[in-house]
């Protein structure tokens, strides 16, 4: 099997004033992998996501996105919407759905960049525009079926239970036809059953849709089960990387999570 690098992050650095939130972080992801990014609270994981997806402009380092069939594209300084267009989308740690729109509409928004209709076709509703609109609805509905939310299609997003909202965010991100999906704590606030369903869903996305996945997660059971490789961050720097087995036994990781004293004891 030839491997293709999807995401290649080199020495990524982000400073806020005098505070260094990311310090020379390296990370690479191959096509078809499920990779986890873990670390204690405040380690810089979400900042890493924000830099990679263009919400922040990193102060140093380089980000390359591959897997689009062309040669890797440098993402530094590119706007988030262009990055979504290029094939990388994300979910948010503190769910950011379009609350006052329906579940289906939320997913239809994800189709925005893959469709063309402008003002003119909105007003005239020519056959081509109707066809596109119908396809958007069908595509969105199919995605809702995949995440088991089809029954809620016409419900306001804000009325969904917490776990369903997280799945809806995933469906919305998938609607952009990404090659790489970034999930920021997808299991936060879920009960064990929901987490198990999530585990299956993420695998399904990778296996059936061929979407590569990078996730931030605190639920270690999920991380160890699901991911093929793990990156560990602490204080803005990458401190370890390897298979779940490697990470479990890595003293640096244990130290980062449990602190110095426990190791000594």
């Amino acid at each position, binding site marked *: 099997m030839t491997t293709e690098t999807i995401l290649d992050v080199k020495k990524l650095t982000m400073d*806020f004033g005098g505070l260094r939130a990311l310090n020379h972080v390296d990370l690479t992801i191959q096509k078809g992998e499920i990779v986890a990014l873990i670390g204690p609270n405040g380690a810089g994981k979400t900042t890493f996501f924000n830099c990679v997806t263009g919400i922040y402009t990193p102060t140093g380092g380089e980000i390359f996105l591959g897997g689009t069939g062309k040669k890797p594209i440098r993402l530094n300084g590119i706007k988030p919407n262009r990055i979504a267009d290029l094939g990388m989308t994300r979910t948010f740690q503190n769910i950011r759905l379009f609350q006052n729109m329906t579940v289906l509409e939320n997913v239809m928004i994800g189709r925005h960049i893959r469709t063309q209709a402008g003002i003119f076709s909105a007003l005239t509703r020519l056959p081509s525009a109707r066809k596109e609109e119908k396809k958007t609805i069908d595509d969105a509905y199919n995605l809702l079926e995949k995440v088991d939310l089809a029954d809620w299609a016409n419900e306001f997003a804000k009325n969904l239970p917490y776990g369903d909202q997280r799945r809806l965010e995933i469906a919305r991100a998938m609607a952009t036809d990404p090659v790489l999906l970034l999930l920021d704590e997808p299991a936060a606030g879920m009960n064990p059953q929901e987490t198990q369903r999530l585990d299956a869903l993420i695998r399904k996305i990778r296996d059936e849709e061929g979407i590569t996945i990078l996730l931030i997660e605190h639920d270690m059971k999920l991380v160890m089960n699901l991911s093929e490789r793990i990156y560990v961050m602490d204080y803005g720097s990458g401190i370890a990387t390897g298979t779940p087995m490697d990470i479990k036994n890595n003293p640096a990781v244990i130290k980062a999570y449990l602190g110095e004293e426990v190791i000594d004891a």
Partner: protein
Amino acid sequence: MELEYFFELFLGGLVKGSIYALIALGYTMVYGVVELINFAHGEIYMLGAYTALIVASVLTVLGFPQLAIVVMAGLAAIIWASAYGYTVEKVAYKPLRKAPRLSPLISAIGMSIFLQNYVLLAQTDKFLPFPELIPEFEFWEPYSHIIGSPSLMILVSTVIIMMLLTYIIKYTTMGKAMRATAQDRTMAMLVGISVNKVISFTFVIGSSLAAVGGVLVASQMGQINFYIGFMAGIKAFTAAVLGGIGSIPGAVLGGLVLGMTESLATGYISSDYEDVFAFALLVLILIFRPAGLLGRNTTQKV
């Protein structure tokens, strides 16, 4: 000649600017504590001026001496303006503290329109002559060709008020509570600060500053109507943004810069477009340096 003209404009700008600064402080303090553009602040200023006018007229008819009239009218303006500020916050803003950001702003615009028309209906839509509350000081006579007594009075009172305000905010318990609330409302609440009291206090202080500004301007201009608060409010807001909203020295600096700009621009370019300069400055500042001259840039949290 050239220099004299400039100097005249400069002083005019200074006087104007210090008034803007007084009103801007109210905006900036309220914004600092509750993150709301108190759109009705200009109306509080107008109400202060009206109260002073009414009280002064009543006292004149009753035959009080000049000094007593000045003091009592000024005090009445401060008391009632504060009362209005306090009430406006309780009625229009407090119920909306957890609402989406646009809601309190729309409520504030509504309040502003309401107060304008309240005065319009209860009083009159015409301009009322405002009594000369500030007398011509005799000792100042020799210098009055440089700067008149009312203008001098404005400058002096502004400086005194700034010093007082700085003292309150830096050293009193309430001032410290205000700063804490501005930093982090939840945290302030957790350490036992009564946030409601702090917010009320902020509105009261801001409103009394506006009232002082209102009285000073009105006695300098010589007339008032129900609409004076609108333009004054917008300009003071511009001053607050110019200096960096939320920053107290910023409001003062912003007020002075705005006053100077207006005075010089009307003096050298055209007086027809006086208000346009203020708006243009506001637009430019918000576009190029939204944090203002003394404000800090903040990154939005995701």
